[in-house]
């Protein structure tokens, strides 16, 4: 399940910003400028729809979008299966 979720997240991220490689290890997507605030809005909207959840507004903080692992952890916390 976890691997499938990771693949889905990478797919959505790549569709959002095709110019970046989101599979690269050790990158902080926010600090590297790979995702801006508009991208985060689009990403959360896509994830909410894809997983039929509503990510809590209080969870929409930069740290939760810094890597694929942090995004997957956010999804699980908000009930994604």
């Amino acid at each position, binding site marked *: 399940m976890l691997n499938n979720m990771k693949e889905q997240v990478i797919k959505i991220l790549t569709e959002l910003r095709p110019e970046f490689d989101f599979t690269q290890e050790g990158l902080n997507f926010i600090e590297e400028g790979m995702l801006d605030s*508009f*991208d985060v809005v689009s990403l959360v909207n896509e994830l909410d729809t894809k997983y039929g959840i*509503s990510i809590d*507004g209080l969870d929409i903080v930069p740290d939760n979008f810094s890597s694929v692992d942090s995004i997957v952890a956010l999804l699980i916390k908000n009930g994604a299966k």
Partner: protein
Amino acid sequence: MEAIAACVPENKVDNLEFAKSHFEEDMSSTLKALGVLERHVAIKEETTSMDFCIAAAEKIFAEGGVKREDIGAIIFVTLTPDCLMPNNSTYAQHLLGLGKDVATLDINHACPGYVFGLWNAALIAQNMQKKVLLLDGDINSKYVSPWDKSTALLFGDAGTATVITPDASAPDWHFTFMSDGSNREAIMVRLGMRYPIKTEYLEYKTWEDGGKRRFIDMEMHGRDVFDYVVDVVPEIANAFMDELETSGEEYKKLVLHQANHFMLKKMAKAIGFDHKTQMPISMNKYGNTSSVSIPLTIASELTEPADHVFMIGMGAGLSSGIADLSLKGLNNLGVETIKC
């Protein structure tokens, strides 16, 4: 609330096309999430918020069954007045041909302005035992840079008129407010006496946040506004409902300042409302029209009067106005367009 009417410019901006031409990118997924697909923006330089509000008020006098001589006071909520002096409400008295005995008052408030206007209108109507004409208008396109991505895609122009009538038999209205001036820079238009105008303030430049705008244009730090809306405001709203011994499911509608759809959905969830069935949206057609967005949403979307409404205006200040009220019996005259 006896009658309401709204007015927007005829000129409509397609946001997808606008994003392509101004920022050279496909922003369809972002715009879908923000929920602003079109905006109405005035073309003529001389157009002001006054024009929209006068058109809306005239519609009420012509079709809403309200007589000019019954108006005891005019309140004008705007952050874009025709002039700094005299105020808009007094000039509106003349333009609308109202009696010289009316009281006039302007309220300078942005996003939460309509709730502050309603509160004042209700108090004045009760005190005078006469009807109050509440005008709410803004021409945001005058100070929103078309080259600043954080604001350019969001804002539209509009004006509304609402008539508040004293009625001892009507259900009570309840209000609560929050003000935090320490965070005023989260969303700000610096044009004013603190920054006496200089030629350089009229030049476009790219700022540290990446936005290209004039010094006098609106500057918005979306992160700070978002945190306020999804964290602070729900706390106040929930405490207010606790005080009133109500909860989200007891209301017919949740009418929110139309900031952006994404943020509003998160906010609705945080205060126990179902955004799909309870939260009307007008920003898909009109964008964020600052304080006008609440009455514009009522005029545009509440075709049937809602007997129990929870209303939140939140943003610039930072400040919020929250109301629990009834719109039963409201004569809704809808939204008209004018060439401007």
